[in-house]
């Protein structure tokens, strides 16, 4: 049988970088093929070639035996290839139907063909079992529903004559709760049952094993393995992805010895600009030598909680104490008190990208006597400090210009190591009193994730209290002694990790259990 999609010898170079190196792949009808690989492995490049955004230097793409003309997104659409991007491309203030119409309809028609479009939408939704109200406004939909609209849009808008035959999903679970991810997986089963071929891009091993029939692993632009999912396991996939064995550090159960309370929140309330509480009566207590994780879908108040503990936000009600003292909402005061801070957005908040590495290494402490005297920066001392940070925290990518390298030239992982080192080295050899890590491994590849985890565990062993805010449940279960779940500004009780099941957390993340007494 002709495969739905056949890639043969696809090679793509960017200057000296070979992003795709002679990659050959096939996708059968009714199959879910997972494309697994770290950041920079070549997944996005391959998909972009498939979708006509890039033109391959060598190799061909065939759809049902027909060669696909290179570099033409329109041809890809006409051949029945649909794509759902990681970040939604919906207009919030329009209805589902309008969103599907948008970009589908030719702009020069005098009237929009709403009736035909509605029929196509309802028909497709029924065929694939995707429940969506065509007249609902996108703003009112949940994240999971929005993704369903994205999928519908892809299905309706491509290959209108022949219908969609191949669907590409780029990191589709990144924004979903566990329950929503489950429902997406069920949808995928229905899609492939209808004969669609699905390419599922991910770097999460569990879901790849769970959802796909075959797994293609990319590393450094090369296809290192294609294997049936039934024959794969997590450790093996991780090794294929990284090219070496990766020890993911884990918190030993019962490793936490109860120590002194470091930070306390009681009834902490923070209001947003519109007066609504973004943090609503949150109580939490953090102890030295313990890792507490806050789980939850982004946007449920985690940012306000983090900013509170970064010293960037004022409490509107309640109490916040650090080592028995009430703290002012001033970042410098929190740093002086020994709080190590790792922000969520490392590019926009963690570093000043245009400044060199050495200036970012002392960004939080340039005014202290160690790095300045009478208002003049001690450049020698600061550069020395940056150099030792680079060596100690293994920050790579500074070979050519050393500490003068512009910080934005660093990769995400190395940038995070710089931020981590800056925060952890603030007080010499002394471990920080408290480490507040907001999504510290977001977007990092496995090696860097393991590194960050190890640093957090080490600091905790040396007596730091650690607050880990994360959306990644694997990470939370690997590190946390206690877990609390955040939903709509409310924080559940922080219970020992062993007392939580995945189902409980999933329910709590959607607000089912948090309000219960």
């Amino acid at each position, binding site marked *: 049988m002709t495969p739905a999609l056949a890639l043969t010898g696809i090679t793509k170079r960017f200057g000296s970088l070979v992003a795709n190196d002679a990659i050959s792949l096939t996708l059968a009808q009714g199959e879910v093929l997972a494309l697994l690989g770290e950041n920079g492995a070549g997944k996005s490049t391959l998909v972009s070639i498939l979708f006509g955004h890039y033109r391959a230097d060598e190799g061909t793409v065939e759809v049902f035996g027909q060669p696909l003309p290179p570099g033409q997104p329109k041809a890809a659409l006409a051949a029945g290839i649909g794509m759902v991007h990681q970040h939604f491309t919906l207009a919030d203030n329009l209805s589902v139907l309008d969103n599907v119409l948008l970009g589908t309809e030719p702009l020069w028609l005098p009237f929009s063909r709403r009736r035909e479009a509605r029929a196509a939408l309802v028909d497709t939704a029924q065929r694939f079992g995707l429940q969506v109200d065509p007249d609902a406004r996108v703003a009112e939909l949940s994240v999971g529903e929005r993704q369903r609209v994205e999928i519908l849009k892809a299905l309706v808008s491509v290959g209108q004559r022949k219908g969609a035959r191949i669907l590409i999903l780029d990191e589709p679970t990144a924004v979903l709760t566990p329950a929503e991810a489950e429902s997406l997986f069920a949808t995928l089963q229905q899609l492939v049952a209808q004969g669609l071929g699905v390419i599922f891009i991910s770097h999460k091993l569990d879901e790849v094993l769970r959802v796909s029939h075959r797994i293609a692993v990319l590393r450094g632009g090369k296809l290192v393995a294609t294997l049936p999912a039934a024959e794969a396991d997590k450790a093996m996939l991780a090794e294929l992805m990284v090219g070496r064995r990766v020890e993911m550090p884990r918190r030993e159960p019962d490793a936490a010895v109860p120590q002194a309370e470091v930070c306390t929140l009681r009834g902490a309330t923070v209001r947003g600009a519109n007066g609504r509480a973004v943090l609503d009566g949150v109580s939490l207590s953090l102890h030295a030598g313990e890792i507490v994780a806050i789980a939850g879908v982004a946007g449920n108040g985690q940012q306000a909680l983090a900013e509170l503990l970064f010293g960037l936000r004022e409490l509107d009600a309640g109490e916040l104490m650090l080592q028995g003292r009430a703290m002012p909402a001033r970042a410098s005061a929190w740093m002086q008190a020994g709080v190590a801070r790792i922000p969520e957005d490392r590019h*926009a908040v963690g570093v000043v990208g245009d400044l060199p590495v050495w200036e970012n290494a002392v960004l939080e402490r340039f005014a202290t006597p160690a790095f300045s005297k009478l208002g003049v920066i001690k450049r020698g001392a600061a550069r020395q400090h940056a150099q030792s940070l680079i060596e100690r925290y293994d920050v790579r990518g500074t070979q050519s210009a050393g500490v003068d390298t512009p910080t934005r030239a660093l990769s995400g992982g190395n940038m995070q190591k710089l931020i981590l080192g800056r925060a952890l080295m603030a007080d010499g050899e002394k471990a920080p009193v408290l480490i507040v890590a907001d999504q510290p491994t977001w977007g990092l590849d496995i090696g860097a994730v393991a590194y960050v985890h190890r640093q957090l565990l080490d600091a905790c062993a040396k007596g730091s209290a650690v607050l880990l805010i994360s959306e990644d449940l694997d990470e939370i279960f690997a590190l946390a002694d206690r877990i609390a779940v955040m939903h709509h500004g409310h924080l559940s009780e922080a219970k020992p990790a062993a007392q939580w099941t995945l189902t409980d957390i999933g329910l709590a993340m959607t607000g089912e259990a948090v309000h219960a007494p």
Partner: protein
Amino acid sequence: MHLERRAQTSRALQLAAPLIAIAFTLAVSSLLVLWAGAPVGQAYALLIEGGFGSRFAWGETLTRATPLILTGLAAAVAFRARLFNIGAEGQLYVGALAAVAVGGLHGGSGFELSPWLLFPLMMVAAALAGALLLLGPALMKSRLGVDEVVTTLLLNFIVLLFVSMMLDGPMKDPTAMGWPQSVALQDALQLGKLIERSRVHTGLLGALVLAVLLWALLKFTTTGFQIRAVGANARASAFAGMPVGWVTVKVALLSGALAGLAGAIEVAGRTGYLTLDMSPGYGYSGIVIAMLAALNPLGVVAAAIFVAGILVGADSMSRAVNVPTYIADVIVSVSLLSMLVATLFAQYRVVFNRRASHAG
């Protein structure tokens, strides 16, 4: 086709960018010279001759460059911190007004104070006046988020009308045959000549010293570090504990003071009294100069001399071959635009046939 940021800009490219920009500017402007019916080669030769070709030309150029250096520094330091001060023109005039007010105290006698005391007072008053004029917009920006481009630009018109009122009213020189001008500063308060038989005055030295000081401030001090960090990424700076609002205010005071000094030095060094046509837009040209210099204080000196030379040279070219002097404004404006484009290409490269900027 799209732009992709270069990981690093090479030294050669950094140096080549302004040269290519100037070459492009001359090429574009030559079309206008042709249109005006003058021979391009001769016109440019006259322009360069008139700006830089003789002792006299250099004298005029340096005289013109003095206020431009100061307004250029005012714009450069503010823009470094992303405080877009478009109000240097107004700050220059209030500085000049404060200078003649202090220098002309008590009917021009200054209460018989020693010039050693009165002159510094005059300069401090000018710097303070400029600084205070920018303080309002800076506070409104940092506290209320009001766009400083609008407020500083509009303040220029208010200040000019205010100066006009003062020169026609309380500060009018009764001996000026009805012209709206201030009382002249006494000779002891005027700046000495730096070069004999020219109009170059010691204010040029002052401007150069301030340029070096500002360069050192930005490069070596904690304040300069804060200014650069806040300008490059205010959110990250706030996260790292910098008082972003206070840094903005400090920069505003510095920028306004520099522009105010430009006015005072122009009065004390060149005109001796204040009229409403003292500045042919030095405040606005300062923005162009700061951008041409890529906001580097030492570069501002070079850019100010370049712009001053073009302005002076265009005057003499216009007399010789009958090309309107406005060609100078065209050259300066086009050079700014091509400089901005050149800087863009020095920082980014053009990539064809790629949509996403990362390979992954």
